[in-house]
């Protein structure tokens, strides 16, 4: 039997034949993205578990470890990442209101804030490497007490994994910007943009927890 709804004049061209409607297609895509995000949460939870266990075992090390981190740098990065989440939400809104200029500007701002985050992270990391603060057995910074190598092993793993997510985010956002430049997302089919947005908000969410846990132990 032929696809009856394929002849529906109200059916947008971008709806695949195996979906009943555009709404069903979009909701399926979003549901898939949420399943991926659930996996991401559990992926990060292993490192958070290591953090919880070692903080419980060595609370005094965690106090001393947080002293080695720059609260101002961490705070700036928190503000930068929350702002990038805000501009990402505005980018999705621009697709909804069919405003291509606002979409491109907001995507570009999101990418710039993401790059700004990585620049701050670069200065933080290089400063620590200069002092000899390396993770675990490579730790070579005299003048600190406690199980600092463990603290910094966890610090580098958590912020490093988060940093990798930011870098991937920059790449995907740049791809979206190219698509937006070609005039995409203006026909109501912007679920790809929404899903990348969801990923980007998750990166923000992880940092919302990392900032107080690592920088603000006191």
């Amino acid at each position, binding site marked *: 039997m032929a696809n009856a709804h394929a002849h529906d004049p109200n059916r947008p061209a971008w709806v695949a034949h195996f979906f009943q409607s555009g709404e069903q297609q979009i909701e399926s895509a979003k549901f898939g993205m949420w399943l991926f995000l659930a996996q991401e949460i559990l992926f990060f939870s292993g490192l958070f578990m290591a953090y919880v266990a070692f903080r419980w075992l060595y609370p005094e090390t965690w106090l001393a470890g947080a002293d080695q981190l720059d609260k101002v740098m961490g705070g700036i990065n*928190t503000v930068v990442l929350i702002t990038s989440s805000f501009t990402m939400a505005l980018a999705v809104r621009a697709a909804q209101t069919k405003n291509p200029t606002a979409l491109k500007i907001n995507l570009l701002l999101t990418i710039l804030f993401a790059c700004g985050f990585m620049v701050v992270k670069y200065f933080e990391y290089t400063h620590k490497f200069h002092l000899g603060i390396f993770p675990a057995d490579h730790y070579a910074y005299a003048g600190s007490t406690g199980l600092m190598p463990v603290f910094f092993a966890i610090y580098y793993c958590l912020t490093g994994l988060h940093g990798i997510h930011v870098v991937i985010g920059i790449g995907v956002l740049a791809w979206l910007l190219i698509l937006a430049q070609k005039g995409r997302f203006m026909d109501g089919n912007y679920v790809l943009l929404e899903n990348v947005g969801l990923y980007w908000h998750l990166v923000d969410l992880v940092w919302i927890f990392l900032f107080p846990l690592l920088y603000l132990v006191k």
Partner: protein
Amino acid sequence: MATPKNVSHSAGGSHAGEPHEHITPLSVYLGVFGALMVLTVVTVVISELGIPEPWNLVVAMIVAITKASLVCSVFMHLVWDKRLNTVVLLGAVFFMLVFFTLTMVDLLSRGMVDEINDQDVMLEEQKAVWQSCMDEKQDWAACKDKLPKGYWFKDPNYVEDHGGGHGGDHAKDDHAKDDHAKDDHAKDAGGH
């Protein structure tokens, strides 16, 4: 089977076939953005107050969870989405808490002997020895040997001695292990 690509659509692309969407007012986004900024300042200020150890973490987590809820519900559109997506998120959080709980139950109830690896877990006395070395020398490398073997950092030169019990004689092996455990429990009782 006919593919939609081959089907001609009425010109103009009527909006009737598109999903109904919720366009969040700009004021809502701005409000959430402002709230997130205020809460960031709040969490920094709270950390400067010097609240004692377990409670500072509790307060910091309450603020972080509030921020996360704002991001999830408004920026990630969960309020206007199908409930199924919220269920997926809360499901992930639930399983994360199961993971944390079971691991902490293990850590809190492990006692002083790791019976699986048949070795002592760092005793308070050993920790004190290592700590005093660190206080004196202020050098990680110089005090590394003070950590018990097989503890958080495995010494590559350390050969584990299982008392030659690898032969497959399980009864004997288990018996030897029991004796060892008893010894450790005795030490444990005496030490504390």
